[in-house]
């Protein structure tokens, strides 16, 4: 799961969701299901948000929301197994009978549709529906925000300006080119890719590849009520109020190897004031509800300190890494010594305490990847493992690096000690307080630092703009699936979706790019893992990122909700297992 949209959403909602392969570090029990699940009842979901990110499958990019819609409303060709722990990352044919058959050095993929799969009106789901659905990704001006794997992977020519020659099903420009990339033969869908994509079937877990019935497509407004293919359909969806799901009578259990619909109704309560939402959970006034958000910090502490709530909470590692992106194209930060001085001067403990403490917020990390990402992560050397690294900051050592910069890169030194380094921060109360802590730590090391507070809603859009980004930006990232191919190229290769470090001017960049490209195309997973691990070390050796934090998230729910587990690949509740106790 790469992409700014996603990291924006999730990081702004702070620790609101999600983790990938979190089982290893899951603190709470992975599941509370010890009795047989019961059918019926109404399951409530509470959130402060006014709406889901996007109910429209082609526009949906947030793990929690993908898990929700994929479980209840619509189906993909391929889905993750509904299980906790590492098993949750297993792929299962959903609408397709299998998990895809690659050929031609993984440049051609074939999927065969099941028999008996239907829309909520009873009509059959066809290959044409799949093709039409994917074609909507190309209508980028109408359907904003979704992942664009289709555009980057499918064999449709690109124009000189880098955009696809196909402009989507509404304008129909370049329709013939698209029709060649996906072909239908009875129940078989064939994808032609422009390059080798060894993990193409993982991309298929994204609803962006799910079918759409053309007759039901309402363009922008499809987002209000997607046509159901799963066990529930949307009875009511009022933004800022609630979404109500009822059973889809045209869904057949026989056609679906994944889902068991337990509750009769699912009601998502939108727009709750944060304090009200928390109080509803704390007081257990709505015992059949799960909290889709994180509790407010003080309420979170209260809830986790209460022994009677032990069965209603979970504290797990989420898929995110928060870090300070060094703008390597800026004259302050192109100097390795200045970056090191910043890295070691930082008083990590104070910042973590401010954000909620190590129990709830997270701990210092040593890589851009996280242990729960899977084998692509390996512990690095240097950085936080240096003997002189201190969680409270080491101003003396930082000063040494700064002094070294004086001779090695005098321009950067002068700036860092006089005009000062400018850091971008989303404008939140926590960041306002944090900036004081950072300023104190830097002052102790002799670094002058200033802050540029940007409204939260436009933060990522602003810092992504190379002309607007300052020297250091506080950002975060989570992988799209358990492969560093959704992390390293996105963040450190020019053209990636989140290259906040503007790596391309760094002396180490050229070699890095060659190796990254090679890793992306490597079909041998063992070799690929080794390459990603080495690249991870390179990033840290060059101090392209400031001290990372491996963050955590907490899930809480009411006393009558059962079957709660953590769905690692989606980083949220294991929705398929949730049920309401009788």
């Amino acid at each position, binding site marked *: 799961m790469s992409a700014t949209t996603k990291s924006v959403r999730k990081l702004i909602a702070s620790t609101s969701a999600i983790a990938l392969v979190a089982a290893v570090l899951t603190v709470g029990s992975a599941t509370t299901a010890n009795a047989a699940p019961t059918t019926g009842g109404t399951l409530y979901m509470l959130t402060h948000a006014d709406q889901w990110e996007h109910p429209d499958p082609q526009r949906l990019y947030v793990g929690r929301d993908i898990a929700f819609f994929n479980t209840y409303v619509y189906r993909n060709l391929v889905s993750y197994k509904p299980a906790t722990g590492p098993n949750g990352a297993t792929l299962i044919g959903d609408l397709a009978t299998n998990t895809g058959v690659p050929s031609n050095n993984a440049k051609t993929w074939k999927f065969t549709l099941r028999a008996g799969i239907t829309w909520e009106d009873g009509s059959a789901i066809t290959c044409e529906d799949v093709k039409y659905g994917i074609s909507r990704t190309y209508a980028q001006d109408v359907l904003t925000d979704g992942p664009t794997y289709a555009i980057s992977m499918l064999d449709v020519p690109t124009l000189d300006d880098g955009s696809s020659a196909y402009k989507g099903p*509404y304008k129909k420009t370049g329709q013939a080119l698209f029709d060649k990339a996906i072909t239908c033969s009875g129940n078989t869908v064939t994808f032609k890719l422009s390059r080798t994509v060894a993990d193409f079937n993982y991309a298929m877990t994204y609803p962006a590849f799910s079918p759409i019935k053309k007759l039901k497509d309402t363009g922008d407004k499809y987002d209000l009520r997607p046509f159901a293919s799963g066990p529930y359909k949307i009875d009511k969806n009022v933004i800022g109020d609630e979404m109500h799901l009822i059973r889809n009578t045209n869904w057949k259990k026989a056609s679906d190897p994944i889902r068991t619909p337990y509750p009769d109704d699912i009601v998502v309560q939108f*727009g709750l004031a944060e304090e*009200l939402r928390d109080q509803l959970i704390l007081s257990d*006034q709505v015992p059949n509800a799960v909290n889709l958000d994180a509790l407010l910090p003080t309420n979170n502490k209260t809830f986790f300190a209460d022994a009677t709530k032990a069965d209603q909470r979970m504290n797990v590692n989420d898929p995110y890494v928060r870090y300070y992106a060094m703008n390597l194209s800026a004259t302050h930060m192109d100097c390795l010594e200045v970056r090191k001085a910043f890295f070691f001067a930082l008083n990590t403990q104070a910042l973590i305490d401010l954000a909620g403490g190590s129990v709830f917020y997270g701990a210092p990390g040593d890589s851009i990847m996280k242990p729960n990402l899977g084998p692509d992560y390996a512990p690095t050397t240097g950085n936080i493992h240096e003997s002189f690294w201190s969680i409270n900051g080491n101003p003396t050592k930082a000063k040494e690096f700064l002094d070294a910069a004086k001779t090695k890169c005098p321009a950067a030194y002068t700036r860092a000690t006089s005009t000062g380094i400018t850091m971008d921060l989303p404008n939140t109360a926590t960041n306002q307080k944090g900036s004081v802590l950072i300023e104190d730590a830097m002052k102790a090391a002799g670094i002058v630092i200033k802050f540029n507070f940007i409204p939260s809603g436009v933060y990522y859009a602003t810092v992504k703009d190379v002309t607007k980004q300052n020297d250091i930006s506080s950002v975060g990232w989570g992988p799209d699936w358990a492969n560093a191919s959704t992390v390293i190229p996105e963040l450190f290769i020019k053209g990636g979706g989140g290259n906040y470090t503007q790596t391309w001017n760094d002396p180490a960049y050229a070699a890095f790019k060659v190796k990254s490209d090679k890793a992306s195309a490597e079909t041998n997973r063992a070799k690929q893992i080794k390459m990603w691990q080495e690249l991870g070390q390179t990033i840290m050796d060059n101090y392209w990122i400031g001290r990372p934090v491996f963050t955590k998230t907490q899930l809480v729910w009411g006393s009558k909700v059962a079957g709660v587990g953590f769905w690692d690949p989606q980083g949220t509740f294991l929705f398929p297992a949730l049920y309401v106790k009788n």
Partner: protein
Amino acid sequence: MLKYISRRLSYTIFILILISLVVFLIFALLPADPAALTCGKTCNPQVIEANRHRLGLDVSVWQQWWRFIVGLFQGRTYGEAEALIKCPAPAFGYSFNRHECVTKIIADAFPITLSLAIGAFIMWLSIGISLGVLAARFKGKFVDRASTVFVLIGTSLPTFISGILILLFVVIKFGLVNPLDLGNWANPFTDPLGWLKTFFFPCLTLAFAYAASYTRFTRSNILETSTEDYIRTARAKGLSEKVVLRKHTLRAALAPIVTIAGLDFAGLLGGAIITEGIYNLAGLGRLSIRAVLVDYDLPIILATTLFAATFVVVMNLIVDILYAFIDPRVRVG
């Protein structure tokens, strides 16, 4: 009088046009690029430009503003071909975030805000004025001192605290209202009980702070008016204290409240941001605050700002006209 009203109306329209222009300019000057915000992972300039065009942001601020004005009268369309979106006049724009014409969004949110505002208005006027009258009538006595405490609490306690207190103790602790029913819209004419369930406590919260300041205001106005010569005249006529208070003192003491109450009410029609937030009411206040802080939804920000401004300006006009009926001195020369 008609001439005066029509003159004031045209002045009002001019002010609103000016406000709309200012709002446009302010948002044009902000650093964030709404088109860039719509861009996903493979964000390239080409996609941003396409979206900029579709959002209508690819022309100068003046042109955007002019389109907005024209749209108010002629309606607007967005996009093209099969993805065409139509918003009939009066079109305040289309929210790509909520997939709805802004006019419809506001029309949905307004009854909620109106309910809240009217309910709170009635509550705070009745509480504030009656308490103020009692305090003035029994100046220095227990009622007066009790009202002082009320005024002190009411004016110093911010709504977000009093709101949460009411919420916690009345709604959560004593369960007087099913919390899941909070914010549910009910038509006051067909379902008055449902309406009360939803709106009673929000109105009370909102009325609380206002009632306090109206109590103070009423009390001091009555005491001040009581020393007027014409009140002495009324007594000299032989009127009883009751009649003097009711007919002479109150009439003069409460006249200025029309102005303040009118403007306070107008302010609320633009949305009671905090109260709507606390009680889960999808009114204009919450709509606009979310549009600003969460979604950066320009058309909604624009429309709610204008909407709120309209109420203030129009209410000013209404207050002036009302005042003329109350106070003959401003009526005819």
